[in-house]
């Protein structure tokens, strides 16, 4: 009995700091934000403490134009954000998969060195890495100068402030998030199965679909989620590379908080981000984790 209570004391001491800290500074703030999204915005910033579902009505369409007006632009921005995030996911996936395959077949020493080279950007400042693309894509930037020097163009191209620029920026900063999960699942792939499949006369495509794909799928899905979530709510990349032309939902949230000072509406917008994120996590948990435990 005494031993048990000693153990309880130790456990309490170990868990108390993190429990208190995350309860106060993580769970409660998120709870308050959820409440805020249902409050009436005050006239000069601030909030009125009355129930007000029109914040969501403005975004999702039931605002009747009397108290608040529904504006399709918010759904368009949400759609654009999801589209750009999805394209970022697809691009990183297509870029990383062959590279992960290539590196997994190299001798151990080279392998470790290349993995180091891919994780290194994770340690370097994100804003610096994005700034590099500002230098490249600007009107007087590196890309335009190079193309002009090669004689391919005579007038600088409009590369900045396009959806493509935003996607390039996001792909560039999120590549390690896609690469590492894919790589670790390819590493685990049993090459003798691939060999066997080929020996038995399966075409490369069939081998890929029946042998490779099922076993790397968990890594691919994890990578997709790890890239999609931060891309969806991103506001720095569209801020620097998208400008006023490519506004994403993160920019809307920022505007509501720092310029328009309509905090309840901004809170409602970020609840929408959370909703999309939770939906994805739910799909992930049900499909992947379940499939994993069934094996």
């Amino acid at each position, binding site marked *: 009995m005494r031993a048990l209570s*000693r153990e309880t004391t*130790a*456990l309490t001491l*170990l*868990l108390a*700091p*993190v429990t208190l*800290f*995350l309860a106060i*500074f*993580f769970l409660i*703030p*998120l709870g*308050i*934000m959820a409440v*805020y999204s249902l409050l009436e915005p005050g006239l000069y910033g601030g909030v009125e403490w009355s129930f007000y579902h029109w914040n969501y009505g403005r975004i999702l369409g039931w605002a009747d134009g009397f108290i608040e007006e529904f504006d399709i632009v918010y759904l368009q921005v949400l759609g654009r954000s999801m589209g750009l995030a999805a394209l970022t996911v697809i691009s990183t996936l297509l870029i990383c998969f*062959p*590279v992960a*395959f*290539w*590196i997994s077949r190299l001798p151990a020493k080279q392998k470790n060195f290349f993995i*180091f*080279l*891919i994780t*290194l*950007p994770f*340690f*370097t*400042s994100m*804003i*610096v*890495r994005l*700034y*590099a*693309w500002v*230098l*490249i894509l*600007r009107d*007087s*930037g*590196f890309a335009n*100068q190079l193309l002009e020097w090669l004689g391919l163009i005579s007038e600088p191209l409009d590369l900045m402030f396009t959806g493509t620029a935003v996607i390039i920026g996001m792909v*560039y900063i999120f590549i390690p998030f896609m690469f590492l999960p894919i790589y670790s699942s390819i590493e685990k792939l049993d090459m003798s199965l691939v060999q066997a499949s080929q020996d038995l006369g399966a075409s490369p495509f069939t081998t890929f679909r029946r042998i490779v794909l099922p076993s790397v799928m968990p890594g691919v899905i994890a990578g997709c989620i790890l890239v999609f*979530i931060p891309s969806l*709510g*991103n*506001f*720095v990349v569209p*801020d*620097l590379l998208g400008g006023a032309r490519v506004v994403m939902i993160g920019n809307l*949230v*920022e505007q509501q*908080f*720092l310029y328009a000072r309509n905090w309840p509406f901004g*809170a409602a917008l*970020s609840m929408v*981000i*959370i909703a999309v*994120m939770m939906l994805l*996590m739910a799909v992930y948990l049900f499909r992947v984790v379940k499939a994993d435990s069934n094996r």
Partner: protein
Amino acid sequence: MNRSLGKTLLTGYGWLFFLFLYAPVALIVIYSFNANPINVMTWKGFTWDWYVGLFGGATTVSESSLYVDSTDQLLDALLTSLKVAFSATVIATVMGTCAALAMARYRFRFKGFYQALLFVPMVMPDIVLGIALLIFFVGAGISLGSTSIVIGHCTFLTSYVFIVVSARLAGMNPLVEAASADLGANEWVTFRRITLPLILPGVIGGALLSFIISMDDLVITYFISGVDSTTLPVYILSMIRRGIKPEINAIATLMLLFSIAIAAAGIYFKSRNTAQ
């Protein structure tokens, strides 16, 4: 298609990939020595001026093309960043290590809950966490400044430390601890003499990771930094927003050097980690 051709193509593709990864960053470093004060990306000769200017030295360039009004602003931002990263790392390392020990060494009822609680802050989009904390701090009357930034950073850094230390604990032989207990050492002595030395590489690795992530955090800091405490990334964002000037290249190059140094330290500890 024959095999060796496929292999050559794949290798070529791999090199292109690394070019894509490193060429943009290399451009910053190269052009940070460009003497052209107006068009940053048009090469006009080699100069150290932008670095000299950063440290407040006399340069041959005119004042107007200099960007930082005084080096003080930049140094202030750097100092805030270092202070915040240091405090947040200490707090997060203690909390994360404790949580990892509790999860690895004890059985209790709410384990699943804690697993989720420590996982969610890492995947929460940072803008959401940033504004949630902003609403909270303003509502609770906590003034925005270094303290609020440290608190904000600890919410997600704890999870990173937890993961790194947990991985280390998972690779450890629990029998060593049992042996120590059998030989009559109490829990504290066992922890201090056996467990701590064994998990130390993990703890240091987690701390380094937190330090880097804290130094680099832009979005959460952006929302909760208040008026007179700016960190380096936030300061650089505001510089880029105002317009591109050559000094940013020099600052960015110094930051790259700094992060590579820390990453090298991390690799060093990791190699000691596996050597044991």
